[in-house]
């Protein structure tokens, strides 16, 4: 046995690895912590970006007004007090799919139980045709419930919108109509067609429901009394042009959706242009005062009864008893033609034309509805145009423009824009277009026309009404006819005018039975209208209108 020798060689192993407790062990921990925080930082950055993104997105969302996609949507229209004049309401249409009907006889029997007065032979025919048909559109909730209770799968319903006019005729000329494609075809509905389809909030008008009703009632009454073909009245704030009421008769029921073709249904306030007669004498005198050529007490002496101008054109007084010597004030009070002509001649064509242009009589007015008439163009160099215009002949305009003219003359000489749209704030600065003293002098004269002149029947106690009458003959085919256009343009209270009221009755006739009650405190009553003039027709109507609307205006729209 050989001894096995195991040699063990011991070598000194010089270990290169030497573990030393690092004095700066913190470095390793710092890296780890830094890494963790770095991760947190990244997360927080992502969070922040997301938050910022959401924030900007929300801001963007707020800027974009929600588009109303509901079919046939149109915004509601309300009056100045928030009363609905037009409202779009949800509605349900119910129809039948004949293909889904299981038992036609049974269905007809059940429908007969619900609809007592329906034409069932027609329904039976439609059921046989296998084509969907509407059983009833804009169904009432109770009937809808009854139909659904039948549980017949062939009966289906769909949501729709309908436009309701709770005041029927009252605002027909203002609001106008829409067609079957949900587009406005007249009035506000046409002029604001696109806006009404987009806006969420109701469109607020300047009109007052109660006042509109009262004025319409009185107009209807007097239209009947004087057998007028048509009539119109406008009540407007002289200081800001807000129209509180605008009535034109005849009118129509908006809910019936009839096609109006008869020209008698024209909007007599905005579309009809008329020769309005003596109401223009106010403008002639105001023009003279504004030019600094006359004063209310300026005298015009030795006036002739007839004066000639142009080619054989004679102008005369309507009343032979008209005095030859009159002051400017008396010319308006007595409604003198010759005196007005003399004033106009003193003013001259250019100045008078410029004045009428300034107060908005001559040009087409920019207004809030589509139906606006254009006054006939005037050839100022023709014959005696200036002279006839001085007393309101040979010049046409709309009632709306007449109201605007009277407003500017009486409100201190500030330009206004008649409007039907109620603005949130009245920020527009007023532009003065007439001299300072014109209004003060004119208001005083207009007051005397009512208290002493041709418009005594509108002298309602407590309101300081001022105004001017105008009796004109309607022009048919360039010839003056016997048809009368009787107008009163009034303002009140004359001390500080706030409202202009224009009342016009077209084609009036005398009424032998109507009893006039004089407003001079005498208690005198007169039966039957003595003359077919504005003083006995539209003035009486305006007096009754102010009687009714006056207390509302005085208390509801009180200014502190």
């Amino acid at each position, binding site marked *: 046995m050989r001894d096995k020798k195991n040699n063990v060689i011991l070598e000194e192993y010089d270990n290169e690895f030497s573990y030393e407790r690092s004095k700066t062990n913190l470095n390793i921990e710092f890296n780890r*912590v830094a890494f963790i*925080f770095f991760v*947190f*930082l990244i*997360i*927080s950055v992502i*969070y*922040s970006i997301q*938050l910022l993104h959401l924030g900007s997105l929300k801001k963007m969302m707020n800027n974009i007004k929600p588009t109303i996609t509901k079919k046939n949507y149109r915004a*509601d229209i309300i009056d100045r007090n*928030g*009363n*609905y004049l037009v*409202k779009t*309401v*949800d509605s349900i249409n119910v129809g039948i799919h004949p293909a889904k009907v299981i038992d036609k006889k049974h269905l007809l029997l059940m429908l007969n139980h619900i609809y007592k007065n329906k034409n069932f032979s027609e329904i039976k025919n439609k059921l046989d045709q296998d084509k969907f048909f509407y059983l009833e559109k804009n169904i009432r909730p109770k009937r809808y419930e009854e139909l659904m209770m039948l549980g017949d799968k062939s009966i289906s319903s769909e949501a729709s919108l309908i436009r*309701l006019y*709770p*005041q*029927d005729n*009252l605002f027909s000329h203002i609001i106008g109509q829409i067609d079957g494609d949900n587009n406005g075809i007249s009035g506000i509905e046409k002029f604001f067609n696109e806006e009404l389809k987009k806006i969420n909030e109701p469109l607020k008008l300047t009109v007052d*429901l*109660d006042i509109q*009703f*009262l004025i319409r*009632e009185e107009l209807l009454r007097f239209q009947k009394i004087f057998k007028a073909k048509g009539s119109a009245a406008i009540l407007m704030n002289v200081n800001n042009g807000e129209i509180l009421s605008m009535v034109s008769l005849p009118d129509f029921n908006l809910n019936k959706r009839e096609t109006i073709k008869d020209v008698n249904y024209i909007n007599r306030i905005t579309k009809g242009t008329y020769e309005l007669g003596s109401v223009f004498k106010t403008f002639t005198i105001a023009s003279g005062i504004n030019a600094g050529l006359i004063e209310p007490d300026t005298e015009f002496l030795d006036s002739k009864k007839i004066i000639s101008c142009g080619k054989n054109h004679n102008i005369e007084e309507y009343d032979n008893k008209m005095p030859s010597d009159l002051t400017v004030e008396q010319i308006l009070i007595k409604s003198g033609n010759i005196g007005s002509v003399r004033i106009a001649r003193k003013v001259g064509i250019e100045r008078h034309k410029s004045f009428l242009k300034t107060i908005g009589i001559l040009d087409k007015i920019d207004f809030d509805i589509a139906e606006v008439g254009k006054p006939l163009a005037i050839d100022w160099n023709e014959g005696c145009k200036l002279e006839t215009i001085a007393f309101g002949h040979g010049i046409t305009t709309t009632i709306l423009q007449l109201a605007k003219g009277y407003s500017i003359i009486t409100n201190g000489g500030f330009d206004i824009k008649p409007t039907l749209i109620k603005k949130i704030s009245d920020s527009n600065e007023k532009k003065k277009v007439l001299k300072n003293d014109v209004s003060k002098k004119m208001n005083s004269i207009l007051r005397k026309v009512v208290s002493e002149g041709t418009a005594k029947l509108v002298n309602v*106690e*407590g*309101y*300081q009404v001022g105004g001017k009458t105008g009796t004109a003959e309607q022009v048919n085919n360039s010839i003056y006819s016997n048809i009368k256009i009787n107008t009163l343009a009034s303002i009140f*209270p004359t*001390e*500080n005018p706030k409202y202009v009221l224009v009342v016009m009755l077209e084609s009036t006739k005398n009424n032998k039975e109507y009893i006039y009650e004089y407003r001079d405190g005498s208690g005198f009553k007169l039966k039957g209208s003595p003359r077919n003039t504005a003083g006995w027709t539209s003035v009486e109507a305006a007096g009754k209108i102010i*009687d*009714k609307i*006056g*207390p509302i205006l*005085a*208390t509801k729209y*009180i200014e502190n």
Partner: protein
Amino acid sequence: MKKVVFATIFILILATSLVKNSTKEIEDKILMINENISSLKSELGDVLLEYNYLSSPDKLTQYQTQYFIKDLIKINIMKIKEITEKNNLIKISDLVKRRSYDER
């Protein structure tokens, strides 16, 4: 110093999370309230329409002729009084006089 910075960042992250969470809750509440308001507005609109129709001047005149024995009377503006309160004193004055409507 670094610890303070890290701690601040950490607190900010935590605060952001909490704020976002609460914001979301508020947004949900706003959404719910808006939805409720929308349906209430629609209901109010229908009720107002009904009210406007039933209380329209036309209807009121109709009720008057149907139910009242006497005609409605016209108000004389000269008889309208105005009540004003100043220093706990109530003053009754003529409306027309105050507004200078009366003739000079």
